[in-house]
């Protein structure tokens, strides 16, 4: 028995309708997507927690240190002796050694780094640059403990040969500082080169058009135009030198000493933290809390430098189209 075609068609339409509801295209909640977004946000929050963790830990232990009867805040910043055995806690000898090694490091790194950056950005052919930049990156990738070895086995004997074995101690600030300068040289060079390369080509063309030589263009036009980036690079390098540990721990000597003679051994802040915590210390005793106080001093110092560097970039940046 045959059905009329219209009936078949009608049934087909009905089944089709019941099977395929029109898709709801309105915006609706996707819980999975939201969970993912929250999780990713948490990943970002971990970095904030790290900062809070650092500040909390340093402040807590440092406050414990300063609340001890043996320690006085005023003495911490003025006393020139650091000798926990006899309850003398003056940070000056450690700070002084840190600043001395940093000074020598900057003495090496800033002129050489800037010179290398000017050469790379203004003189070198693209081919030369593509070879030389990776070399600098290799220099930057060498672990700092290797530089410590270098200071001890090459720089110190060299200094002893130049200035005499009696003047130069085996562990000394000059050797550590100079090698630290070699260590941060690639950082200065690479950051400065970035700043110089960012100066628009039109400025250089303008200078050449007025008859300036390549050197005059580089020094009177490009460097002033990039000055904010350059200063930021120097400050970052300064912070790096202040916080550097391994070179000074190996080569600058163990034992705090307040001296301005770079040929003598003197322990820096970082070196002291490394040496004290490397030994077996009991939690909560005065030596344990004292390294956190030194750590706080170090943190504040580098933090302020980083803030200044950021401000310099924002404030003095020359914006070009």
């Amino acid at each position, binding site marked *: 028995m045959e059905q009329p075609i219209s009936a078949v068609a009608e049934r087909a339409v009905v089944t089709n309708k019941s099977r395929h509801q029109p898709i709801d295209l309105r915006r609706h909640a996707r819980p999975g997507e939201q969970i993912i977004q929250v999780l990713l946000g948490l990943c970002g929050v971990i*970095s*904030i927690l790290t900062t809070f963790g650092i500040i909390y830990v340093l402040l807590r232990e440092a406050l414990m240190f300063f609340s001890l009867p043996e320690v006085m805040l005023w003495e911490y910043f003025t006393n020139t002796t650091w000798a926990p055995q006899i309850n003398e806690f003056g940070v000056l000898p450690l700070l002084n050694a840190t600043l001395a090694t940093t000074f020598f490091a900057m003495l090496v790194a800033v002129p050489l780094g800037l010179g*290398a950056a000017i050469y790379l950005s203004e003189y070198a052919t693209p081919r030369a640059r593509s070879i030389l930049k990776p070399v600098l990156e290799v*220099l930057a990738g060498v*672990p700092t403990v290797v530089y410590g*070895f270098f200071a001890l086995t090459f720089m110190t004997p060299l200094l002893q040969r130049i200035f005499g074995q009696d003047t130069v101690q085996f562990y000394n600030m000059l050797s550590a500082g100079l090698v630290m300068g070699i260590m941060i040289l690639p950082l200065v060079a690479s950051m400065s080169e970035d700043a110089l390369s960012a100066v628009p080509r039109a400025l250089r063309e303008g200078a050449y058009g007025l008859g300036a030589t390549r050197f005059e263009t580089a020094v009177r036009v490009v460097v002033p135009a990039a000055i904010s980036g350059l200063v930021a690079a120097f400050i970052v390098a300064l912070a790096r030198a202040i916080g550097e540990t391994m070179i000074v721990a190996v080569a600058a000597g163990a034992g705090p000493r307040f001296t301005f003679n770079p040929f003598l051994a003197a322990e820096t802040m970082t070196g002291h933290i490394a040496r004290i915590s490397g030994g077996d210390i009991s939690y909560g005793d005065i030596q344990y809390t004292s390294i956190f106080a030194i750590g706080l001093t*170090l943190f504040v110092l580098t933090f302020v430098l980083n803030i200044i560097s950021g401000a310099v970039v924002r404030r003095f940046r020359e914006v070009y189209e």
Partner: protein
Amino acid sequence: MSEPTTTSGLPQGPAITKHSAQRRRKGMLWRGMFIGSLLIGIIALITLFATIINDSFGLIVIDNKVDPSTLSDQPLESLDKAALQAILQQHISAGRFRQLNREQPFEERDQSDLLQLLEAEVIKPSIVASYTLQESLFERERVAAEAAKKYPQGTLTFHSWISGTFLVRPMHSNPALAGIRTAILGSLYVVMLTMLFAVPIGVGAAIYLEEYNGQNWISRIIETNINNLAGVPSIIYGLLGLAVFVRALERFTSGAFIGINNGNGRTIISASLTMALLILPLIIINAREAIRAVPQSLRQASYGLGATKWQTIWHHVLPSALPGILTGTILGMSRAIGESAPLIVIGASTFIAFDPNSPFSKFTVLPIQIYNWVQQPGEQFRSIAAAAIIVLLVILLALNATAIFLRNYYPRGAV
């Protein structure tokens, strides 16, 4: 009254040639100085490598307690296991022999094992003098004369401090017998765990900052914060790890909560967590750059086909950003391998004679082993430090070469 041409202060007439020649000379001079500063950097790098190589190869004078040729009339290497065991038994006390047997039964030991035992227990070679490569190559006669005069029974041989046995031997207080096996295993453990923590979190944070509400206040705070964290000295992270992971979370990091008793939290897991926090900014900054370089059209095409935000990120943005993310990951990894200051603070041990076997083991890592040896007095410790440095540098060079290759092979956003 002067002529208008002279008021400009510029040289006129024939003086022009002289003046510009002067300027050009000055330019050349400074150009030389700029090249010079770059050259000094390169020379420093070469000197650095030369110093390391100079100390890791060279002549040594070996003084054996027992001359190996008196033990047997054939070379020891050609003897079989039974003969070696007999010689060993003959030359050490019965108690010591039993003790060795208890440590590992002799039936289970193979020939090379016995050879090593013979060397350590009977022959007992000690290096009485060592010379740098430079002395060995250029002052060979002087070295030979000196060695013959000072150590008549010693033998002078050329020694490479870096060797297969140096890589696989555990720590030892005698530099002639010391190896870096424990340190390499420790480094591997720490780095692997570090990456396990740091990469997912770092990439996650980078995705959040780049793809979700990139401009709201929380992102701005995170961004400023990351830039500041990147500038914090590494030793400060060590103090954070010491107070939080080693001390406050001691129950977890020492493994006490699953019944492992290590005494304290100075373990691999504490080290890895500390290191992960240290390299997190580096990974986030690099991953962000890689994600930012993915062209916007890719995302729009994906949205246009009806993909959700996460589908777009997971299937399109991340695969395109992968080379850049990998580069950042490798850079973070090489940082984690070379860094030692924070690990010293959280208390990596310097003398460990057994292999680390769990995240809750005590550990040492390559840079700390080097630090330890550099501090020891004596030429030989300097030589093994140099040899360990070569191992460390080879690992780092391989990693960095991979990173540079990835960066050049896949230019930004061109995938």
